């Protein structure tokens, strides 16, 4: 029987086996005394669409069927501890057949439910949401503030304070002017542009100023080694005073 099957017309190997069983009009239990397994293997072999992703489950089933077949030719060494692969497959097929049946019944439910129409939500103008805040008290508010005031001296002089002062002292614009001024005449090192004990913030700002000047083509920089000193050369000798 030269049937050409498309694997994609089945939900999987169990589905295909059930199809063959149904066509042969036999009971699931009789699968191994019938031609079904041979038909299955032949069908997979001749299948038109071999999408590996999809076909792997079909091929795996074919391997199982071949295993079962070869076992039947050999004498059984001892009573098996586990379920026979034959029994396992029959049980799987029966379960799957039952599943297909309830799935079909569920489809009827679905069909009926699809005829129960819903309505779209109404447009319902809502007032702004009311927020009820719990556990708010004046004393808690006062306490929170008092705690902050106590905490404040500890923080003074720490990063937050320093940062604020730094922001005002160093701007990219000022640093750019400073670099141009210092580099007039001879090349200067990056370190010499910085103040004596520069903060991290100052270094960052000066470096940004440097990058900006390079972008504008006003200076060029040389660094001979990794992490080595950066030397700044002014490209605009003589045209600086303005």
């Amino acid at each position: 029987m030269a049937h050409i099957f498309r694997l994609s017309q089945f939900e999987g190997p169990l589905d295909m086996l059930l199809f063959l069983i149904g066509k042969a009009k036999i009971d699931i239990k009789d699968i191994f005394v019938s031609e079904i397994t041979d038909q299955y293997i032949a069908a997979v072999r001749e299948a038109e669409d071999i999408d590996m992703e999809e076909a792997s489950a079909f091929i795996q089933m074919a391997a199982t069927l071949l295993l079962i077949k070869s076992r039947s030719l050999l004498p059984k060494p001892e009573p098996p501890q586990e379920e026979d692969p034959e029994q396992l497959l029959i049980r799987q097929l029966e379960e799957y057949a039952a599943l297909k049946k309830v799935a079909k019944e569920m489809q009827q439910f679905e069909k009926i439910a699809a005829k129960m129409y819903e309505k779209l939500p109404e447009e319902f103008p809502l007032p702004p949401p009311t927020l009820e805040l719990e556990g708010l008290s004046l004393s808690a508010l006062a306490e929170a503030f008092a705690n902050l005031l106590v905490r404040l001296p500890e923080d003074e002089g720490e990063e937050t304070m320093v940062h604020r002062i730094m922001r005002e002292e160093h701007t990219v614009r000022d640093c750019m002017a400073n670099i141009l001024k210092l580099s007039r005449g001879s090349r200067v090192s990056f370190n010499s542009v910085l103040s004596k004990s520069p903060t991290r913030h100052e270094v960052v700002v000066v470096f940004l100023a440097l990058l900006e000047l390079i972008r504008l083509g006003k200076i060029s920089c040389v660094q001979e080694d990794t992490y080595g000193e950066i030397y700044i050369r002014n490209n605009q000798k003589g045209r600086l005073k303005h």
Partner: protein
Amino acid sequence: MNIEELSGIIEAILFVSGDPVSIGEIALNLELAELDVQHAVEQLQNKYEEQLSGVRLHRFGKHIQLKTRESYAPYVEKMLQPIQRQSLSNAALETLAVVAYRQPVTRLDVEMVRGVKCDYSLQSLVNKNLIEVCGRKDTLGRPFLYRTTDEFLSHFGISSIDELPEPDEKANEEPKEESCYDSEFDEINTTENETEHEL
């Protein structure tokens, strides 16, 4: 507020919402006992049933929703273009059936029954809010466990999982003429030949 009034209020809420509404949320937001809400819902449900009205009150698990009576669908369709709910593919339906009957289940459980990979169909059912992850199984790899949602019940028009069709439990000794596949060719008889199932 008496029970008549409360069921009127619930009716108004359901009408405005259109979508399923949780009974617990009604009780919470109206500051009422959930039992009172339950009673009013029952009253409303009975009212709709007694009158063969065009709309019915459906319960899906913990949610309630108004929907039209199914038998009036042809008339509604003559007049309007109601939003048609998409039906599920066979693959999705099979996967959903395994989850529904065996919940909570892992992906592997579903794959064992269906004999094919089910990642895709599980994910698409999760996206459709028909199933949800409800935990992890305490085995190797701690795989996700899936169960059905109230949306699932709504999709199939049932109010609880118990209303799903009973799978045949009895062994079917004699080989039947028809198999499950015949039903596709033969509309009349859908009896099947499986002998015993664990569904």
